[in-house]
């Protein structure tokens, strides 16, 4: 398959069996845990799964649970150079009991570090997953794991407190991430966990169509909250990756914010810059699921109305989920001039890694040594 060299910002990995993780959980929780996943009024899944039907392993092992399958089905044939593993999808911190949620996420982080990140494959990088109900404990989890060379992001998924992630209630998380120099990531899909009636305005979506189409709604709120509450001003180095909500909404959203920010300055004077400037400098969006639009031209022209969009987009496949993108197809939909940045270099810069050309040159030196 090949295609462009990839820095994939959203691959979902999983355990083969819950026991793989549970033996990291303190005994008192293990004895009373009913389910590792929080309750949600979950939706019907086509063919009974949210995964690609060809991603189940031998014997029906869960999609994303086998490194060998990940390597042979995706990493090798699709020319993946960096693979950011993001759990499946990490909703577990949405358990109603905040103390159990915190303990379970710690266990998942330990499992991830000991199993996946000990695999001898330099492509694999991952995230520090948080349970956010107690932001002070969440901040402690960031500090506990920061410094591991393969943990490159702090990931926020479930939202049990019902506040957008830029709200001041989460300041301990913002402060800890800024202190250790890790960006925050927000992955869609966590809104319904632990608050099963509140995943979007108007309540629970009823079908996958409205559920998926409305994923931009909570993400818009999360993004805007970082601007409105001055998080980017308070923490000048803090960066934010928005994962899996699509792209076409961004230009119109930025136009509206830019048009209103000065008029409303009496209430939000700490927003010093145009919202689009904060986005351009501090925020990155993953590409999947990239809207096809009526034509390639329509989609590219729309995106180009956001100045510098080619510096903002980072490739993600969403492997092994059912709506995963194929990088070869995405490459045909965006200008060639964007390829190096979109498929690799934007993400590398965001996570503090060398651009592809430099990484390849380094690899050649190592091979020659």
């Amino acid at each position, binding site marked *: *398959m090949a295609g462009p060299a990839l820095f994939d910002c959203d691959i979902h990995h999983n355990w083969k069996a819950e026991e793989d993780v549970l033996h990291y959980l303190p005994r008192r929780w293990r004895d009373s845990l009913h389910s590792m996943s929080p309750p949600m009024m979950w939706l019907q899944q*086509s*063919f009974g799964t949210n995964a*690609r*039907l*060809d991603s189940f392993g031998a014997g029906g092992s869960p999609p994303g649970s086998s490194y060998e399958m990940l390597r042979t089905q995706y990493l090798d044939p699709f020319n993946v150079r960096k693979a950011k593993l993001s759990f499946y999808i990490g909703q577990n911190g949405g358990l109603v009991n905040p103390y159990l949620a915190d303990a379970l996420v710690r266990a998942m982080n330990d499992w991830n570090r000991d199993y996946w990140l000990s695999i001898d494959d330099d492509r694999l990088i991952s995230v520090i997953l948080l349970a956010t109900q107690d932001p002070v404990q969440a901040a402690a989890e960031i500090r506990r794991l920061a410094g591991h060379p393969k943990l490159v992001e702090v990931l926020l998924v479930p939202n049990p407190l019902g506040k957008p992630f830029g709200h001041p209630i989460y300041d301990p998380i913002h402060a800890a991430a800024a202190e250790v120099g890790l960006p925050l990531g927000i992955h869609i899909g966590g809104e319904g966990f632990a608050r099963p009636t509140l995943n979007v305005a108007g309540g629970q979506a009823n079908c996958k169509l409205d559920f998926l189409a409305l994923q931009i709604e909570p993400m818009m709120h999360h993004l805007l909250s970082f601007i409105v509450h001055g998080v980017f001003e308070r923490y000048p180095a803090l960066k934010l990756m928005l994962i899996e909500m699509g792209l076409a909404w961004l230009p119109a959203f930025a136009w509206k914010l830019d048009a209103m920010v000065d008029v409303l300055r009496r209430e939000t004077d700490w927003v010093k810059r145009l919202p689009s400037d904060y986005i351009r400098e501090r925020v990155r969006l993953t590409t999947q699921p990239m809207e096809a639009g009526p034509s390639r031209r329509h989609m590219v022209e729309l995106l180009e109305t956001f100045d510098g969009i080619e510096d903002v987009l980072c490739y993600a496949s969403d492997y092994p989920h*059912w*709506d*995963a*993108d*194929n990088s*070869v*197809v995405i490459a045909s939909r965006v200008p060639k001039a964007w390829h190096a940045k979109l498929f690799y270099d934007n993400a590398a810069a965001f996570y503090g890694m060398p651009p592809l050309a430099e990484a390849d040159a380094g690899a050649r030196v190592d091979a020659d040594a």
Partner: protein
Amino acid sequence: MPDVGAESDFQEGRPALVTVRGREVAVVRWRGAFYAVAARCPHMNALLSGGVVCPKLTGGADVGMIELDERVPTLACPWHGWLFDLHTGAPAWDGTYGIRTYRASCEDGRVHVSLDRVRAEPP
């Protein structure tokens, strides 16, 4: 017509991937008939041989009613669930993305696929 395997190699309703003159073809055995289509989904290039065979979705005239036409097999892509009519290769929706259909038959316990295109009307 090139021989792609024994009849017993093809399970009912389970697509199989074969290669005919260098071309990837998904072969489906369904209710006594064999169907052959180009194996790559035109949407994201996924292999359709990993997909699911099911009767064609019809209806939609009344909200809340979903009906199936048991006479028409469709093949659902294993990734995004795009559906293709196995008789015609026509997609269940966006008409710009069809797949090629080929002639398939079974004689004396052997399955044959020709790269001649088929445009049969569904029954």
